[in-house]
């Protein structure tokens, strides 16, 4: 590749042609502060923090300025420092600075940049833009008074997720990032994935905090409070406590949950195994009986909401299986309630999820085994769990390793890998292969379908059948597969789709930041966890087998249909408009 050589602060550096000054400065080991830049996703020079002196009449933004041969860049002189400082000071003048009670306090990029630039006073005291505080969504809260208009959320929502729920409206001082037609988030086609939250540099977008509800339930002696944790949480929670990305903290997490006062610490992995048995059998049933193919996974609530809004005609392709979270909730308030002799209404189910869309999923009316009682009461994100553990003052990294409770806490390696893109498919193949052929798999590792690639395809020989599979993560990648199905060009049997890039390990509820490097590290932890477990196939989970023997009967049986399967609802792509009530008000 053609290289260009330039000097940055007197240091010579060679970078591939087409690199930006920001890339080059990174290669030279020189830090340039940024606020709007998002590697490989977003470089629009909007925030003006990365200004550098390239010898031109005006300062240039390093994130957009191309590095060229012989160029001399100065990243730190009085002119640059003063310009950067003024930019941040102006930003702060229109930013609601309630840092002590902001959800992003101590993990705020604006706070960090202000500190780096040595800002110690409010130089500009001026008018504040009108605050839009949107709490309509069960998943995501928007607070425009913190927004710095960096547009990362806009790019992620539109380019990465292909949803386009947010965009800037109006101009100048009135500019605000809002959903279509200035509606509340709940009234537009938002999938609630929280990728916008994950990239927001400040506290303008954050999950709806439910930690108080959980503390209340734990303190209530009439409630039997059980908790389930999703596979991806254990591969990321350590980051909340400064541990390097990719540290496995399953044991510490279990101990922490027990110390917090949960009556039982269970595992969503248990119902992930159960999902494989139900979904695997559903696939075989569809293949044998000419059902709708390709069949598509239904674990990811952001993905479900996406297909309901954007491809409602393809809903019959979805597996009817509830997500592992909801299967868990349904079983906790039936099977477990019976077994433990506790009334379902006295059981309080808390989920710890890497996801904001799960907060929405648990509120869907169809997700209750007993009318009026939700199967899952509260969903917390990985970040919220981190917050609660900090409130407890625990030394998380040094907690002794605990084990989940029986029976809903027993699981296999096949369940753990649900947290990575391709994991559900791999787990399903491990089971389907053995169920169909009656033979034992020599190698349970289907490495061809692992990795962060957006769309993956494979053909797997299962007995006489060549099973064609595809995997997508990130909704813009899902869209590619949906278009193929729509145009009759998809001859797959089975498709796995995860809403967030990389799968749940990159979910909108995971510790901030999530970068590709961090995704890779979390993925490593997940596969490591799988390797370390003795049972690595869902159909060998003894607790799941006992569940069928004692309670469910058989996969796809009557009870399964009642408790573990669901239906979907076509939703509108556009919000309702009120033709009669046309405002003529102006500004």
């Amino acid at each position, binding site marked *: 590749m053609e290289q260009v050589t330039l000097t940055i602060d007197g240091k010579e550096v060679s970078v591939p042609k087409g690199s930006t000054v920001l890339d080059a400065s990174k290669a030279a080991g020189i830090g340039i502060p940024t606020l709007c830049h998002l590697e490989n996703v977003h470089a629009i020079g909007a925030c003006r923090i990365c200004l550098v002196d390239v010898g031109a009449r005006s300062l240039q933004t390093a994130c957009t300025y191309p590095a060229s041969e012989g160029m001399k860049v100065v990243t730190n002189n009085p002119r640059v420092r003063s310009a950067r400082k003024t930019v941040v000071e102006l930003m702060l003048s229109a930013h609601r600075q309630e840092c002590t009670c902001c959800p992003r306090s101590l993990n705020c990029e604006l706070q960090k940049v202000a500190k780096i630039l040595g800002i110690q006073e409010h130089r500009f005291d001026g008018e504040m833009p009108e605050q839009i505080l949107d709490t309509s969504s069960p998943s995501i809260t928007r607070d425009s008074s913190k927004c710095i208009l960096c547009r990362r959320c806009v790019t992620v929502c539109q380019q990465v997720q292909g949803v386009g729920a947010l965009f*800037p409206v109006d101009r100048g001082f009135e500019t605000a990032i*809002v959903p279509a*037609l200035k509606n509340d988030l709940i009234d537009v086609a938002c999938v609630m994935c929280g990728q916008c939250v994950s990239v927001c540099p400040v506290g303008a977008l954050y999950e709806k905090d439910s930690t108080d509800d959980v503390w209340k339930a734990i303190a209530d002696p009439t409630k039997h409070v059980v908790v389930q944790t999703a596979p991806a949480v254990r591969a990321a929670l350590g980051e909340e406590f400064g541990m390097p990305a990719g540290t496995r903290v399953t044991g510490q997490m279990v101990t922490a949950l027990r110390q917090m006062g949960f009556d039982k610490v269970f595992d969503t992995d248990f119902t992930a195994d159960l999902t494989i048995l139900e979904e695997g059998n559903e696939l075989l049933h569809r293949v044998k009986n000419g059902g709708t193919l390709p069949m598509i996974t239904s674990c990811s609530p952001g993905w479900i909401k996406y297909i309901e809004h954007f491809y409602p005609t393809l809903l019959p392709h979805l597996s009817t299986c509830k997500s592992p979270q909801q299967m868990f909730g349904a079983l906790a308030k039936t099977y477990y309630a019976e077994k433990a002799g506790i009334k379902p209404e006295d059981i309080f189910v808390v989920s710890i999820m890497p996801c904001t869309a799960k907060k929405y999923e648990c509120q869907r009316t169809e997700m209750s085994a007993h009318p009026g009682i939700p199967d899952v009461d509260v969903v917390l994100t990985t970040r919220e769990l981190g917050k609660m553990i900090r409130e407890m003052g625990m030394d998380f990294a040094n907690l002794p390793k605990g084990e989940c409770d029986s029976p809903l806490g027993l699981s296999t390696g096949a369940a753990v890998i649900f947290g990575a893109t391709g994991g559900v498919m791999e787990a399903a193949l491990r089971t389907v292969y053995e169920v169909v052929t009656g033979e034992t798999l020599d190698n349970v590792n289907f490495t061809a379908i692992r990795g962060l690639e957006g769309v993956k395809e494979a053909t797997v020989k299962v007995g006489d059948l060549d099973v064609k599979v595809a995997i997508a993560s990130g909704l813009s990648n899902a869209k590619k597969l949906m278009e193929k199905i729509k145009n009759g060009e998809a001859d797959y049997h089975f498709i796995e789709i995860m809403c967030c890039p990389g799968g749940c390990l990159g979910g909108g509820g995971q510790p901030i930041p999530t970068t590709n490097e961090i995704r890779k590290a979390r993925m490593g932890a997940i596969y490591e966890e799988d390797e370390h477990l003795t049972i690595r196939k869902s159909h060998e989970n003894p607790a799941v087998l006992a569940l069928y023997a004692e309670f469910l009967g058989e996969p796809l049986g009557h009870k399964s249909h009642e408790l573990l399967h669901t239906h979907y609802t076509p939703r509108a792509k556009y919000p309702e408009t009120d033709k009669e009530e046309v405002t*003529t008000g*102006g500004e």
Partner: protein
Amino acid sequence: MSAHQCGCEGQVKQAQADEAEKYVKLAQIIDEYKGQRGVLIQALHKAQGVFGWLPEEVQIKVADGLDIPLAEVHGVATFYSFFHIIPRGEHTIRVCLGTACYVRGGKQVLEQFEKELKTKVRGTTEDRTFSLEINRCVGACGLAPVVTVGADIYRRVKLDKVPEIIAKYTGGK
């Protein structure tokens, strides 16, 4: 019930037919740009040419037809001051707020119009007679403060002239 005698039924039917015709034209505009990139502003411009403004229904049709998120269509429609997302009045009043007009009292004149018309800048009166806008210098600073109504120009406008100017277009109504 007896049939309508007042003739308004015919008027309603005519209005519905006019509206339907506008949507036929909109469909043609969208067809013209379908599948192309970078055509949103042109499409909105032509759509506004048909409707006079950009109702939400129209924004949705454009978004759907061009496969662009509605949030983006709305964002573009609100960014450019010559796109209108509220209905336009029959006459557009523009008060100049260029430097000369501003120091000669343009701001007060604008406030007077807002008061008299009971609408704000970029707003339209309830009877849809007037839309109120501001100008950034019309290049006639010697006449400051300047107000234009359509093609008519009013020079050195004083506050007490405001009701007179309005009356000219309402016929004293």
